[in-house]
């Protein structure tokens, strides 16, 4: 835990209304002295872990959660996927007065040692924040008896040991597609992805279906910067230039740091073509509107909010009901659309609201396609050339 996190804790001190009630052990740990109290926590946790180690599979007893950890493939300041998970877990930690450990930048090498290192610090739960960790984490949980959370792998769940987060990001992406379909004036909309991981693929198909529903005659330009180019801003910029040349006036961009390459391409394009309606950008995962320059062209963002899921799984761990599939969808606010300062037409707002209730009522079914081949196929069905 860094100094910065500590100061954030103080900032959020008053902001603990939500779950302060049933967490009476708050008395035990004081804000300023987390480090010292960790020793106490360690001793207690060792005691608590003892029965767990004997019978890991039957850990339906419930444990007092003192410390949780998150492991991420890239940097926690990558302006995207990794940062959102870490920031959300830290917020939940602050609200529940649970210590949060962050192990970042781990790539897709074997992360077992890091998991073991975390376990040796007696964390009660490890969030494995990458679909690429869906194999290694359940293996680790089975071997060590430490509960883990994986992404997009519902088959892996095990009572007391493995829980799964299903991000129904395609639902919010569908809304973004509806918004794009209503807002585009050129009728051409672009998607730029940095690689084809499941999360990007789900959103690509959801967006395309929303676009098709809102504007059947729209043209969709789908381009991938290339595998694993989350931070290759220069390549993302070059690709976005090309997408803009094809006439796209809205770009749905999925990339962590590389998203800024897309934003810069659009900014420049807008500056070069005064008098024309400006091209706008749809972001994913986080909220970049704090960045002034980005805010000027940010139409919306498909927001991921893990706080409810994290809060629930900690509660479940304490209640002994851990090991389920936690779904983040539109109705529970796990995914959502960001409201930005850009003006949108009232028809658009209505169409998005209608689509939202359609999804929530089940009248609209958004496809859930995670693999690259499936994406190609679905896009060809929707937008035959």
């Amino acid at each position: 835990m860094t100094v910065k996190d500590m100061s954030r804790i103080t900032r959020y001190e008053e902001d603990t209304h939500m779950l302060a009630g049933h967490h009476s052990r708050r008395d035990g740990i004081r804000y300023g002295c987390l480090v010292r109290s960790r020793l106490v926590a360690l001793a207690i946790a060792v005691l608590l872990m003892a029965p767990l180690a004997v019978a890991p599979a039957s850990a339906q007893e419930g444990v007092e959660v003192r410390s949780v950890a998150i492991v991420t493939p890239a940097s926690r300041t990558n302006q995207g996927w990794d940062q959102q998970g870490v920031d959300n877990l830290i917020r939940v930690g602050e609200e529940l007065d649970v210590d949060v450990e962050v192990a970042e930048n781990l790539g897709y090498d074997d992360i077992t040692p890091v998991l073991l290192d975390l376990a040796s610090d007696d964390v009660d739960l490890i969030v494995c924040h990458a679909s690429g960790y869906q194999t290694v984490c359940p293996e680790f949980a089975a071997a060590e008896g430490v509960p883990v959370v994986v992404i997009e792998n519902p088959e892996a769940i095990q009572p007391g040991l493995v829980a799964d987060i299903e991000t129904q990001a395609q639902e919010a992406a569908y809304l973004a597609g509806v918004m794009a379909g209503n807002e585009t004036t050129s009728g051409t909309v672009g998607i730029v992805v940095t690689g084809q991981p499941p999360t990007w693929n789900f959103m690509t198909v959801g967006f395309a279906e929303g676009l098709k529903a809102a504007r059947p005659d729209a043209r969709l330009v789908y381009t991938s910067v290339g595998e694993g180019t989350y931070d290759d801003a220069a390549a993302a910029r070059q690709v976005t230039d090309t997408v803009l040349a094809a006439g796209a006036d809205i770009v749905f961009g999925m990339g962590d740091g590389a998203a800024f390459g897309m934003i810069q391409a659009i900014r420049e394009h807008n500056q070069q073509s005064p008098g024309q309606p400006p091209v706008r950008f749809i972001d994913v995962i986080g909220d970049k509107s704090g960045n002034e320059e980005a805010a000027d062209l940010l139409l919306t963002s498909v927001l991921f909010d893990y706080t409810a899921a994290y809060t629930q799984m900690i509660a479940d761990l304490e209640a002994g009901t851990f090991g389920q599939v936690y779904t983040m969808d539109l109705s529970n606010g796990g995914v959502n659309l960001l409201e930005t300062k850009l003006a949108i037409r009232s028809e658009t707002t209505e169409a998005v609201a209608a689509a939202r209730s359609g999804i929530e009522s089940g009248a609209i079914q958004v496809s859930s396609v995670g693999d690259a081949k499936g994406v190609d196929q679905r896009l060809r069905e929707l937008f035959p050339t």
Partner: protein
Amino acid sequence: MDLSAIAATVLASAVLASIPLMLAATGEAIGERAGVLNLGIEGTMLLAGLVAFRVALDTDSIVIGLLAGPLVGLVVGTLFGLLVTLARADQVLVGIGLTLAGTGLSGFLFREWYGDQQPLLDTGSGRPLASLADHVPVVGPALFDQHWVVYAAMIGVLLLGPVLTRTRAGLLVRATGEAPFAVDAAGISVWRVRLGATAMAGVLGGLAGAVLVVVELGFFRPGVTAGAGFIAIAVAMLGQHTPLRVAVASLVFGVLQGLGPGLQVAGAPVGSDFPRLLPYLGVVVALLLARHRVALPAALGRPYDRATARQDD
């Protein structure tokens, strides 16, 4: 769909993308001409890019940022030069060390300085000839809708050609790469010439990083060069170590890189992975085809050693 608009943008984008590559590769070419192979260009570009970014942000001036990059490059290049000449350290070893350290330090400092913030510079202005772009089909934007730095860099690199072939300094550099013993015998210090060449290579590598960050992108990210420093080594070789040909090779590489997205946007069913590997395969094929002309300086990679020079040179 307007295919000519797409082609025009692919070309214009490729020109811009090729500038940092061209600068770095020219630097590498000069170093190699003097017999020094520098695998540390990637690290130099990153360090210089980060400093250029910060200076440009803090002073609110792209020009001052662009000056800071070469300065960093000069320091790094001189250090590298000292290690591989005076200390006779292995060039490949120190080069890889420089890349590792430069990548690490720039990423580390970026995080220390900016945390989870991502400031952006303005890259949209500073195009003196943009109004001419519409008058020429397809290649108009590539030729005219460019930042002034693009023109300045091209002119600068092209001027380096005659410098290498016509001036005493240029001759010395080339002689040091081909026959260091002869240079030594003429009473000229081999290591001083090499140090000068690596310093120059550092300056150009630093400028490359600064141009990438300040002009092309308008922001820094950890690892933002994404391997450009290594491509530069290939391009220097393909360009047969002459600035003009290096510029052409950089441009061709930039176009090949833009071809993938261009094809995707135009609706060709090529996917994203195969087009991405095109430029790299292209380099290998080009090296094979041009093998008779891509001669490396005879003394490349070898520390000069007066005691054994006779038997080797």
